[in-house]
């Protein structure tokens, strides 16, 4: 039979613990966040230092050295046009990472503003804005992105716009839900009673309280955006040759699977690691920042 103390201990164990408030505490308390952040940092460093890490030109062709097997001179071999695959994989991060960044920024700024406006204003504004968001959500994301690219024409810029648009609903819904839940709380009413303007109320009182779920979502969205960009490029709708793009490199590599599988394996691993880093970080941050989900 359990004692009162045991029952109390059980209750305490089930009570949500406040999320860590400093970055140091977050990394110390949640090693998964630290490991995922380190992986992501490595990815960012590779992107920034690409010209120094990759010794070969990722674009210059050399047909006399086409389809060489991996060796000391060419770590991942060469592709069908004699380009160094390692250099192309490293430079590929300079396409994927910025695409993820721009797409998330578009989704966050436009979708987030829609959600903020809908949640804060309520009434007809909320009704109209959210119906538009529902209409975007009525399409599976990748299919909407493909339809947008079909209209605008294949290319990296159009792929970025398309991926940004399909990211809108998630931020609009997240921001709206958070604003609705915060809006009725006493500290918001108090600020309003003290005469705070809507802009001040949003910037000083609502946004800081929205940061935790937003950070988690940004990480998960970046993973989804990279995956979507790679898929569009794999299908030939994203980056166009001779850009060193992981998805497009896999598209080409798939044609040489019989004799030169590394052409597909190198970029495939690179995409997987990059997407994994963002997904892992988002997942770990969600566990750390939202105690209800632990």
């Amino acid at each position: 039979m359990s004692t009162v103390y045991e029952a109390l201990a059980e209750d305490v164990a089930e009570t949500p613990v406040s999320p860590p408030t400093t970055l140091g505490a977050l990394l110390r308390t949640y090693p998964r966040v630290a490991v995922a952040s380190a992986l992501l940092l490595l990815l960012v460093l590779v992107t920034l230092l690409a010209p120094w890490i990759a010794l070969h030109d990722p674009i210059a062709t050399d047909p006399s050295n086409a389809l060489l097997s991996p060796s000391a001179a060419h770590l991942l071999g060469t592709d069908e046009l004699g380009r160094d695959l390692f250099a192309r994989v490293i430079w590929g991060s300079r396409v994927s990472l910025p695409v993820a960044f721009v797409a998330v920024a578009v989704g966050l700024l436009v979708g987030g503003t829609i959600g903020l406006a809908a949640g804060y204003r309520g009434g007809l504004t909320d009704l109209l804005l959210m119906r538009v968001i529902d209409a975007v959500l009525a399409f599976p994301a990748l299919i909407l992105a493909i339809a947008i690219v079909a209209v605008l024409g294949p290319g990296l810029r159009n792929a970025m716009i398309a991926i940004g648009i399909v990211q809108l609903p998630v931020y609009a819904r997240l921001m709206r839900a958070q604003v609705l839940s915060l809006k009725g709380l006493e500290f918001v009413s108090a600020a309003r009673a003290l005469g705070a303007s809507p802009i001040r109320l949003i910037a000083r009182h609502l946004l800081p309280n929205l940061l935790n779920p937003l950070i988690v979502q940004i990480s998960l969205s970046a993973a989804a955006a990279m995956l979507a960009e790679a898929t569009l490029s794999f299908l030939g709708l994203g980056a166009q040759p001779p850009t060193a793009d992981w998805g497009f490199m896999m598209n080409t590599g798939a044609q040489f699977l019989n004799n030169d599988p590394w052409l597909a394996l190198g970029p495939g691993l690179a995409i997987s690691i990059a997407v994994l880093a963002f997904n892992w970080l988002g997942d770990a941050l969600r566990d750390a920042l939202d105690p209800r989900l632990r």
Partner: protein
Amino acid sequence: MVPVAFLVSVAVFSLIHLTPVDPAELILGEERTPEAVVALRHELGLDRPLPEQYVTWISHALRGDLGRSIRTNQPVTQAILERLPATLELGTAALAWSVLLAIPLGTIAALRRGSPVDVLATGFTILGVSVPNFFIGILLILVLSVNLRLFPPGGFTPLTDSIPDNLHRLILPAITLGTVTTAINTRFTRSSMLEVLRQDYIRTARAKGASWRQVIVGHALKNALIPVVTVVGIQVGAILEGALVTETIFSWPGIGKLAIDSIFGRDYPIIQGFVLAIALSYMLTNLAVDLAYAWLNPRISYA
């Protein structure tokens, strides 16, 4: 749902009007004359005001007439319906293996939390959503087709021609398409099961002396699967998205491959029909999922 369906139809209608190329010029090709373009624009109704064009288009669409393919002149509805069975077969197989693997795996992971099985299952759930399905498809072809020669690397045999050959060719694309959903379903089953195992009624069932099987299968799993059902329903969208890529890799003649071929062929009526069909079926599935959820969980009421 009606306002959203209206907005969706407007968006799909707009697709053809937002393209940089005039559909009449596309149909007539390089040999066109300005007079022929004007005549065809008039014949297709492209010279009429947009609201009027929308009303004509939607009234035709509601009767199943989505126009004709620019490349083949085949009715769009017929082109989609001809390729739908192949996609349905692939999608059903992918969802089936996904559910059959995910539910036991997620349940075992939850029951043995922290064990090596749980670590493996959790690792799989994050890898499954991170590795692109085209990479999974390529890996499967490389290992099982190119090296071990166990499966053909692509192609399709209709069920009516040969059932064994059809199934043989189905396995690799179905695994490719179902991996993401398997990962998501495993994760949902695991977390849902963990949540249910903490409930008082499980403690009560154990306290009254119910057998392990009764507690797990009769009480825990039954309740834990309610949210999983909704997730599986919503995955119809993921399956349709994945079909675009999987059908392209494995030369599977479904609607996904039709859509991709149509994009490169600038066959806008087919793209329009495809997007409309997908959006409507996705919306209807979501509605069915909502209703199924209320039916499965009597605590939810939409009244």
